[in-house]
């Protein structure tokens, strides 16, 4: 046990905070991310994380906690995307690519200027790749409240979102305000990106949104079970990542812990790859049946 859990893990204040915030954020991001994947908005999530990077680095430059930068730019970009209707990948690659490139260029400038002023390189690392161990205690209640709000929004809209992904026309015909529901969901996605940026960094926040959801979609069926699996996978990767990051303090190069985000993101990706090792599911039997049915058709 000593070798798995380094001494002092459970007694450390920063570890408690990291575990608490990490869990809430992981669960929120995983559930929100599941709808992003289902709605074909993974790309929107990725765009939001690029733009949040600019917000975080701008906040660092002006001396504000980076969460406010992530939040302002993430939610602001979500609102803009909704108005401009650029949430989906199709046909908008080029324009979006240019805008996102410019956003990251701006982030580079902000980080550079910020580094000149404060002469720490650690801050830019924190913004790009996160550090759940150095959360300012005063922001913790804000982070938890934002996460719960985003999660509550997504759960409140869950059935409408599912019906809309089945068919926007059916949803509209049944009186679902499809546009408004999409806008509210996109705001929740912007908040989730900002929160994930605090845990694994702005650049890597997509991994917490999309990774657990993508893995859950491969192992679970049904909306409730898939959401629960995504939340579990996200939380497990976060816990294990925090534990390994804490342990890595004793790994070479000694007295320098490895970044939490490395572990969390690697665990998420590893979990996804593991699903490809499983034997193929029983659905395949059904598929053969469907193919036979087609084979019979005269066409």
């Amino acid at each position, binding site marked *: 046990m000593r070798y798995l859990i380094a001494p002092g893990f459970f007694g450390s204040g920063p570890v408690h905070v990291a575990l608490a915030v990490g869990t809430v954020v992981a669960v929120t991001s995983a559930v929100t991310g*599941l709808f992003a*994947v*289902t709605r*074909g908005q993974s790309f929107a999530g990725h765009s939001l994380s690029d733009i949040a990077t600019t917000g975080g680095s701008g906040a660092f430059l002006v001396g504000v906690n980076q969460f406010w930068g992530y939040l302002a730019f993430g939610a602001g970009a979500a609102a803009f995307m909704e108005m401009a209707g650029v949430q989906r990948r199709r046909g908008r690659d080029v324009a979006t690519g240019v805008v996102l490139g410019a956003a990251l260029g701006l982030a580079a400038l902000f980080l550079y200027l910020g580094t000149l002023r404060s002469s720490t390189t650690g801050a830019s690392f924190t913004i790009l790749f996160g550090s759940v161990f150095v959360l300012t205690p005063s922001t913790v209640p804000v982070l938890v409240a934002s996460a719960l709000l985003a999660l509550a929004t997504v*759960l*409140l*809209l*869950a*059935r*409408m979102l*599912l*019906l809309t*992904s*089945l*068919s*926007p*026309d*059916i*949803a*509209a*015909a*049944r*009186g*679902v305000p499809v546009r408004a529901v999409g806008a509210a969901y996109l705001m929740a996605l912007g908040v989730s990106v900002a929160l994930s940026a605090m845990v694994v960094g702005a650049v890597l926040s997509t991994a917490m949104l999309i990774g657990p959801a993508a893995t*859950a*979609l*491969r192992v*679970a*069926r*049904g*909306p*409730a079970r*898939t959401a629960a699996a995504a939340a579990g996978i996200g939380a497990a990767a976060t816990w294990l990542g925090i534990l390994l990051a804490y342990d890595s303090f004793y790994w070479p190069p000694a007295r320098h812990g490895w970044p939490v985000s490395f572990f969390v993101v690697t665990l998420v990706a590893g979990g996804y790859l593991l699903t490809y090792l499983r034997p193929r599911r029983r*659905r395949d039997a*059904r*598929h053969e049946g*469907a193919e036979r*049915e*087609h084979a*019979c*058709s*005269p*066409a």
Partner: protein
Amino acid sequence: MAAELLRLDGVGVRLGGREVLRDVSFGIAPGEFTGLIGPNGAGKTTLLRVILGLQPATAGSVRVSGPVGYVPQRLGIEPDTPLRVRDVVALGLDGHRLGIRLPSRARRDRVDEMLAAVGAGAYASARIGELSGGEQQRVMIAHALISRPRLLLLDEPLANLDIASVHGIVSVLARLARAQRAAVLISAHDMNPLMPVMDTIAYVAAGRVAVGTTDEVVRPEVLSRLYGQHVDVLRVHGRILVVAAGAAAAAGDAQVTAVG
């Protein structure tokens, strides 16, 4: 006709400056099975969208009384969408509501009953995106009927299906509509599979609609007036074929292929 479920009066639709539908008037009575027949691009989908309120009419009036069920032409879903067949049918009950629901025995039984009624019980736990076209149509009919609508609209549910699936779906539809006493308005470019079950035909061509029994409407003089060019109505091996004289363009493509 006191208790009509649907009444269209002089409905016209312009889309991007083009007149898609002109002076469409007809009604649907409870329990009536109406085929909305016409070639591709005739305006069948537009008319269904107007009835559903998804597309505003630019002229005339549309009155719908009671809940309407809808089966769209295509589902835009990916194979990994986390909706099982039973989830899709359950969304037909309350997919338009806020919040999440707890699982309940009664709901589950109701969904299972509906799935059995359309013959989709065997794949209740499969993902909707993994089904064949005919299987998906059965599930979507269950989705639309579980909320017990008075009127069911279906947009080309028989397109791109093999013959066995077409017959299966038509008979499921006719049986359930009768059992639930729901009126049906179903669009199709080929009227033949619907001949045994249709009470009324609404034939769409060149933006106009002729309504009546098939004997009244599917006649050379009526359809020629509708198309604005001479068309023939042929009966070959029990199938009705609408064929434009000289050009094949005016007829539903299935019929033309059969003639050629």
